[in-house]
């Protein structure tokens, strides 16, 4: 079933179509929210809100464009709203995800966790750009559409995000050895 047919079923109020729609996109939306927010329960709430909002506004989807970037745009906006609300309440990401102290032995954390922790320290634009490109595997043009920025800006943000992440990982003691092997110091 292609995107257009699925959307038409949802717009008709077909329950099975709605379930299929949510099942099809929940993985991408939840993963993005989780990586963006660094908190599972928050991610679930925002993912649910994003998917429900997407369904309610399906009539506004431009059928000639792919559906996934359109839904991810909604998820990105909901994450941004969620983060701004949290900042208003003076609750920072750092306190929410319980970052380990710098003296914590690195052996306790694997590489994926290190990357997740480093991500939370990036600017929100850099993090979104990095996630959309590397995690969601969208093209630079699609990322630019979602973030409503020129392609050149996205390239710059992606480059800076990667450089800052590498700096943070190195600062945490995760380095590469010549010969492409990884070890911890």
């Amino acid at each position, binding site marked *: 079933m292609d995107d257009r047919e699925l959307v038409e079923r949802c717009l008709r*109020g077909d*329950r099975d179509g709605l379930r299929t729609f949510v099942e099809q996109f929940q993985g991408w939306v*939840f993963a993005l929210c989780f990586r963006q927010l660094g908190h599972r329960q928050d991610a679930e709430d925002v993912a*649910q809100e994003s998917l429900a909002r997407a369904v309610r506004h399906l009539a506004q989807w431009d059928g000639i464009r792919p559906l996934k970037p359109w839904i991810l745009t909604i998820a990105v906006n909901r994450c941004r709203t969620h983060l701004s609300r949290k900042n208003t309440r003076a609750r920072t990401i750092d306190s929410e995800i319980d970052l380990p102290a710098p003296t914590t032995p690195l052996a306790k954390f694997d590489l994926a966790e290190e990357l997740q922790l480093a991500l939370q320290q990036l600017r929100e634009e850099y993090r979104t750009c990095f996630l959309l490109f590397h995690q969601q595997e969208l093209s630079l043009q699609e990322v630019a559409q979602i973030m409503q920025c020129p392609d050149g800006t996205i390239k710059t943000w992606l*480059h800076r995000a*990667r450089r800052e992440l590498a700096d943070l990982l190195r600062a945490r003691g995760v*380095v590469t050895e010549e010969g492409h092997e990884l070890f911890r110091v």
Partner: protein
Amino acid sequence: MNCSEFSEELQQLVESRGDSPSTAATTHINECSTCRQQWHDHLLLAAALRAWIPIANPPSLVDGVLNQLQSTTPGISVSARADSRRWTAVAMVAACLIALIAVGIIHQSTPDDHNVAQNDRRKQNQPEPVPTDSGSDRTIAVASSVVAVLEDLRTEYQEIAEETRASARDFAVAIPSTPVTPWTELLLPDIASADPPPVQSPASAPSQGAVSVISRSIGSQIGEAMDFLWVAVPDGVPKG
């Protein structure tokens, strides 16, 4: 290749999601420590991204979204609620049929002492007898069984209600100067309308032990009622 050309190639490598640098870039990496560091950073991020395992979806997410839509989207809520009502009706009819069939099977063999026989069969792990009558006979038998069970229930309820009421009266009489409250007027009109008893001295009031005995009597009556309900309700009806 110089550093600027290497940086440009590395950026293109990232954007195209490639992983193999050109021979010229490899040569440059070996000669330039700054660009070698950039290349190692690239490998580090690539390894970290590979380590990102897929995140398991929350099991409740799909239902959560559908429930949220059901409560907030009028067009969807209508069909969803219609579905819900339809399934509720089907479930109720099915439950009634199951209960009727269960009662019929239980009473067909020994209608007078069905509970004892049923418990005996359970203890011996014997299967329930399967009725072999024709359809109409079976329907009549089921209906008769239902009537019999209802009659039994009514009789037993009346007896238990009477006994409980008698115990409550004993309890109320035993306590000196029972205050007239709405519930005593309702349950014990003869006591509520009677003249208040004379104030008794502490010595003539029932002892704590006597009150305990009466309380235990009431408690045992209530317990008996609950036990009866537990046994008498057919298996087709969920207990508790």
